[in-house]
């Protein structure tokens, strides 16, 4: 009973301190959070308008029935999956410099998954019927529908990426050695799960013979390769920001190691894309139409063409930057490469992947989709939500990692209270 009471008190204490930690910060911190809150608010206002009018408020239609939301979803699942890139070397090969930052990487993955799930939610026409998707409560079409798989995989991955870092952080907070027998299986499980979420997301598109552009067996490998470029690229940038604004010591060596991995992944990504382009252009069947629409324009419709060539240029430039050790190991060029990859891959596997699946549509109709202001604002709102979640998580996680935020203070205080109580007892018992 007393143990339980103690645990409850400890937990409450931890929460209270966490809340204070999150609520207090410098000017930059307040400005950043307020900016994000404003963007979230604007996004929410636009979303409510969409909710009211129906999806007619967007520019999607029966020809292009998925748009910017699902494009962002696809990209973010990839970014989340990429956290595994940090997990493998740090836990399995005990590569020290990355080990220190892996918890942060996993929290990044969790934030990305939250964003990905939010993008699916805003794309649902009937959010009020969301409960139909919940296993045992609704009637989930498992294992037939890949969307059902995705719901399970994404939530499973989110659970893992919250459980692992939170468990480790709490152990750090109490200065205790983590129980590796308990947590290591989850860490190891998160590796195949990362591959799984992105494979399932690829299969979601891949299994539709109605859409030849997606119906290519190379799709899942391509998804993984591009994810392992963009995710770590985002992480490299974020870690440099963290290093600037906190006392966390992140060695350059860790960043360079990640950048080397990005180099390999980008090579694979470009190679797989080239293989697909070769097959389509050399065999030149009717299924080439979507590729023509994307890369050359089809019957005068060529709105995606400048985008995809920009993406290609960015990806190739980034690949060269990450290939040459001299440019890879200079922060300026490294950051440029990361930025190019983040944008290039977003175009390639966001709009550049989702839209050509619908153009031309199965009956040969061509409709050029451009997202409208509402879709943009809702999307910005979701990105801001993810960033805010990540910022708040970092606000707590970083001080724990650096040892600034620990259990010690509390222990001292309880001791003091206990000592006072003892002293009081002695006084009242008249020993003095």
């Amino acid at each position, binding site marked *: 009973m007393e143990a339980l009471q103690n645990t409850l008190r400890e937990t409450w204490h931890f929460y209270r301190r966490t809340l204070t930690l999150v609520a207090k910060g410098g000017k930059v911190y307040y400005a950043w959070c307020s900016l994000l809150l404003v963007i979230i608010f604007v996004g929410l206002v636009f979303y409510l308008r969409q909710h009211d009018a129906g999806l007619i408020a967007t520019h999607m239609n029966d020809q292009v029935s998925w748009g910017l939301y699902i494009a962002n979803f696809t990209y973010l699942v990839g970014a989340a999956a990429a956290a595994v890139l940090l997990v493998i070397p740090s836990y399995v090969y005990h590569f020290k410099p990355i080990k220190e930052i892996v918890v942060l990487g996993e929290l990044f993955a969790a934030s990305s998954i939250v964003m990905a799930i939010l993008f699916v939610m805003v794309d649902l026409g009937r959010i009020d019927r969301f409960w139909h998707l919940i296993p045992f409560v609704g009637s989930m079409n498992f294992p037939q529908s890949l969307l059902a798989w995705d719901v399970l995989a994404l939530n499973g991955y989110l659970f893992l990426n919250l459980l692992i870092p939170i468990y480790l952080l709490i152990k750090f907070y109490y200065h205790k050695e983590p129980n590796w027998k308990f947590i290591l299986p989850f860490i190891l499980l998160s590796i195949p799960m990362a591959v799984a979420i992105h494979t399932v997301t690829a299969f979601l598109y891949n299994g*539709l013979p109605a859409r030849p552009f997606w119906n290519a067996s190379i799709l899942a490998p391509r998804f993984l390769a591009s994810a392992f470029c963009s995710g770590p690229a985002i992480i490299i940038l974020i870690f440099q920001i963290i290093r600037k604004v906190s006392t966390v010591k992140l060695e350059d060596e860790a960043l360079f190691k990640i950048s080397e991995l990005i180099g390999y992944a980008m090579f694979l990504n470009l190679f797989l894309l080239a293989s697909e382009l070769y097959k389509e252009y050399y065999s030149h069947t009717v299924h080439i139409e979507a590729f023509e629409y994307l890369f050359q324009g089809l019957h005068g419709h060529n709105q995606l063409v400048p985008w995809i060539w920009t993406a290609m240029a960015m990806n190739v430039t980034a690949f060269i930057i990450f290939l040459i050790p001299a440019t890879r190991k200079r922060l300026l060029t490294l950051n440029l490469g990361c930025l190019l990859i983040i944008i290039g891959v977003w175009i390639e596997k966001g709009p550049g992947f989702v839209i050509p699946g619908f153009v031309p549509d199965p009956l040969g109709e061509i409709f050029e989709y451009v997202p409208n202001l509402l879709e943009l604002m809702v999307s910005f709102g979701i990105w801001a939500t993810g960033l805010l979640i990540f910022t708040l998580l970092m606000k707590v996680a970083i001080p724990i990692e650096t040892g600034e935020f620990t259990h010690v203070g509390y222990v001292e205080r309880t001791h003091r209270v206990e000592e006072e109580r003892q002293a009081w007892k002695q006084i009242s018992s008249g020993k003095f």
Partner: protein
Amino acid sequence: MRNKDFTRREFIRNLSLTALAGVSVPLLSSCTKEETEDFLQKHFREMTKEEKQGVIAKLEERYARQYGRKFQISTQEALPDTLWGYGLELSRCIGCRRCVYGCVKENNQSRRAPQLQWIRVLRLKRGSLINLENSEHYYSPDLVPEKGFIYLPVQCQQCQDPPCVKVCPVHATWQEPDGIVVVDYNWCIGCRYCIAACPYKGRVFNWAEPDIPREEVNPSVHYLGNRPRMKCAVEKCTFCIQRVRQGRYPACVEVCPTGTRKFGNLLDPNSEIRYIIDRKRVFRLKEDLNTESKFYYFFET
């Protein structure tokens, strides 16, 4: 075994819904009773007979309020030993689109902003049939048929192995025993995965609240067919389920001025559709996708 499973599922569902309701009491109390009922409405195939009657009564009242008409909402089940099949004689079609508008009227599609249509007539240059890339969907000459063109009407092909049913994450769409693929409009979550999966563009989405003028509404409806829908649910051709289960032809068959469209029971060796399959040279659209569609195109002789 099955029964036991079912009760367990029921139990978990009720428990979770109770919990959900408990948590969201303030939220739900701001909704009307009707909205709450809508929110908690079960999947059509899991309702008991009484529950179905309750839902029908509620809908009749709502439609009467909305359209000022008395609706007949049928939940008639599939007739025994029937598997509906469709025949379309391409050499007869003149591209007049009477089927398109006959369907809109019969099936209570949204009329304006936007207008939904379950049938699309494609105009193809003579010499090409399989590659639909060069098809024209929005042809509008003063007079049809036009020289040098043929017309290819496309609607839901009622696949025997439907990709849309396979991908639906919540079982909101399924195949009835008579082969018709239907949608529970109240169960659809509006994810539009089925639209992405359909090779025939057989499904359309209510992007906005449907808009049917009071005087044009068809009050004789089937629950799984032409009853007025709601915003952000998917819909599709049901071979006029409200008609064919009562022994009538689909509206498009009736309205066609050239006798292009044929309809019948594939399991009945004496039906017209069987006669056509046995004696004409029939083909099915995108047969290479193995959807086993029950929509047969053919030419005279």
